[in-house]
């Protein structure tokens, strides 16, 4: 029989003496051995590769330098979101390519989301035909490589659309759509552009010089969104106090679009219609074939995956949730908004974001249809003209990596924010 009543506490574990044979046979030190061996082999491998590279470069008389980025590029880029001409540097050309990548990625993400949500929801509809049709869409696009789709859309654009010359003459064989404002040709789609009568010039910000008019429009949009948030918050406050939620839709509409309308009127905004002049349509916005093919190819293909995510997200919310909400007297609309959507979004958004990541990486397939993205500028023509394949590839991979890590970092933040609390 023994009993202790003093409860002693030590704060730090003592160290044990180290013997050499422990390296192999001791649980604790063996992992150190393994890691040292591993690291050694790894270092050796890397050193070998680096050594080979250095001697190969030396044999070719090349060095490793990024100076080529500030040399004049010499080539033209057809789609230029920022000022660019062939006299500007390779670095600038890479930036133009990166922006083109971003434009395509954003457009394709938007299309994929819209299509995916529609198809995902419709696939669950109890309408037999619609559900089947959506199943066909999803299976057809999921099981055929995106590259095939991109090329098909590219072919549709060049092969099946009329050339600009078909719009010419007294009896043109092709005509524009929507009251002569949209022209679909085998060189792309021309849509009206918004022009401002009073041009406030540009804001020189170093590399880019955005138009002040559009900056103000952007400010108005962001401001509108914030104002709308405030209105909704106020509505909630009123509801909390009185139980009755004031109608807000007209206020929302007003703050979201009011400032825009005012700005547009102030600036004398008008539509500039595309017009057949010389060889091509001029004015308006030119969405090139390459852009359209990439956009449709990536967007519709990824939309099929998004549809599956949406469908499983909705299915993950058990029927019991709807029934419980109904049993409490919530109407279907409110059930959707207050009970189903908040839960489904948690399930849907993480895979949705990884689809966005896939889209971003897949924009590099622009090569197939001649889209001038980052890969085509920095990773294509620049490398070819300067012979800096090592540096160019490395830089390009790092840029893609940074973008990917940025997106997945955002996803992790979101995931942690909405994680369900469990026991």
């Amino acid at each position, binding site marked *: 029989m023994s009993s202790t009543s003093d409860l002693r506490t030590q704060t730090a574990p003592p160290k044990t003496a180290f013997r050499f044979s422990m390296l192999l046979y001791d649980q604790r030190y063996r992992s150190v051995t393994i890691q040292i061996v591993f690291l050694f082999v790894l270092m050796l491998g890397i050193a070998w590769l680096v050594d080979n590279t250095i001697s190969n470069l030396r044999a070719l008389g090349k060095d490793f330098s990024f100076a080529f980025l500030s040399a004049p590029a010499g080539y033209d880029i057809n789609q230029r979101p920022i000022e660019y001409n062939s006299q500007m540097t390779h670095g600038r050309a890479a930036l133009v390519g990166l922006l083109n990548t971003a434009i395509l990625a954003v457009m394709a993400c938007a299309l994929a989301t819209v299509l995916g949500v529609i198809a995902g929801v419709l696939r669950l509809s109890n309408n037999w035909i619609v559900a089947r049709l959506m199943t066909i869409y999803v299976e057809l696009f999921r099981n055929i490589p995106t590259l095939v789709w991109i090329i098909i859309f590219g072919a549709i654009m060049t092969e099946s659309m009329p050339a600009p010359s078909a719009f010419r003459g007294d009896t043109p064989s092709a005509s524009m759509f929507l009251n002569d404002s949209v022209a679909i040709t085998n060189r792309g789609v021309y849509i009206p552009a918004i022009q401002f009568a009073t041009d406030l010039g540009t804001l020189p910000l170093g590399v880019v010089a955005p138009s002040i008019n559009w900056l103000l429009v952007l400010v108005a949009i962001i401001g509108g969104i914030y104002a709308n948030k405030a209105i909704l918050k106020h509505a909630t406050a009123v509801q909390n106090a009185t139980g009755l939620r004031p109608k807000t839709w007209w206020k929302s509409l007003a703050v979201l679009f009011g400032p825009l309308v005012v700005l547009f009127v102030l600036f004398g905004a008008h539509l500039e219609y595309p017009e057949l002049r010389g060889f091509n349509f001029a004015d308006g916005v030119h969405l090139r074939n390459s852009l359209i093919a990439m956009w449709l190819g990536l967007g519709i293909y990824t939309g099929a995956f998004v549809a599956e995510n949406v469908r499983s997200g909705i299915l993950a919310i058990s029927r019991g949730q709807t029934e419980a909400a109904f049993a409490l007297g919530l109407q279907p609309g409110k059930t959707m908004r207050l009970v189903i959507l908040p839960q489904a979004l948690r399930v849907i958004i993480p895979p949705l974001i990884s689809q966005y990541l896939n889209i971003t*990486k897949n924009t590099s397939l622009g090569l197939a249809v001649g889209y001038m993205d980052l890969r085509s500028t920095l990773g294509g023509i620049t490398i070819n003209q300067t012979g800096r394949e090592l540096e160019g590839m490395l830089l390009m991979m790092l840029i893609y990596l940074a973008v990917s890590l940025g997106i997945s970092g955002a996803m992790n933040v979101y995931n942690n924010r909405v994680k369900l609390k469990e026991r």
Partner: protein
Amino acid sequence: MSDTNPISYVRETMLDQQEPPVTERGAIKWLRENLFSGWLNSLLTVASLGVIWFLIIEIGPWLMNTVWNAESLRQCREVLDGSSGACFAVIKDRWHQLLFGFYPREHYWRPVLALVLMLVALAPILFAELPRKMLFFSALFPFIGYHLLWGGSIWFPISILLGFVAGYVAFRLVVKVSSLVGVIAAVAGTLLWWVFLAGPFDAALYSVAPIGLEFVRSDSFGGFLISIVIGVSGISLSLPLGILLALGRQSDMIFVKSVCVVFIEFIRGVPLITLLFTASLLLNYFLPPGTSFDLILRVVIMVTLFAAAYMAEVIRGGLAALPKGQYEAADALGLDYWKAQRLIIMPQALKISIPGIVNTFIGLFKDTTLVVFIGLLDPIGLSNAIRADTDWNGIYWELFIFIGALFFIFCFSMSRYSMYLERKLKTDHR
């Protein structure tokens, strides 16, 4: 039963099933519930019927009016004589290229036999009911398949196979010292054999006994043959590599772990196409001057690394889903790390990850189309080549329909198989 108690009630005769009212029966109910419940639904029905009608009207006549016999698009057009119609004659003319590339015609039996044998080798892996002994053949298949496809000296695959034997012998010899040393010895033994002895061994035996099928160069490979070769090798190699990476990422050895994390995140963060470019353009910078090895092999390596990173993440999910108790029970029974992994952890983790694994496989198979960018003649590359030919200049849809349909068949059957497996595993062991 008491009549005094008003609430007491007993049913004397049970009622029989009755037919539901008309609205609950047959076609009317089906239509009402499935097509016309509410105005939105009716609208959707009408819209979809419209879409289907449009497709039939647009594509139907074109498909029905197919020309199968012609030597060029011009001939096709002559036959069609202005009416709209498909010209699948191009497939009839070029199907062998789309399937085999420039593989010598008299040797077509080799890839076909390899495909059949591959299905046999896959069978015991895919269907657990088959006898386990067949796995022996599955293990040998890579070597048989290689020899069938490329030919050359039969001693070459055999000497590669012997590398594993060498590794095993080395392992046996020193495993007594420590299993860690054993593993290192096994890897070293295999590599040493491959690097230093396999070549001479092959050459010596071949000079004595020159047996083997006729050698076929890699650049005659093309079409679906190349997609399948790259896809299947990538799939079978990326699984073990993915498992290792997943284990590395789960490991508590900080260096191993961080190297795995960096590798996985890097590979997942860049587009496959940049890796393929690296394989085709940059790899020689990293190797000693003068080394050159087959482009297909390089692509297989890159595709494998790429898929392995995704695989590792899928398997990590499976590992994370296993309760800690499984590891502890294995420890308590005295199983060492690798035995525990092989016998306890992996069988369960892989089962959990099957849907993800198959999805990665499908993705990998679809991604084999990207090799067209580095000049390999996969189906897309060949379709470009065929269209560049003056005979078939201007033909599009027929080729794409053929290629798309074949990809669809492969990928769709894979995804169906994974659903079958999921269903089966759900009921198994319960």
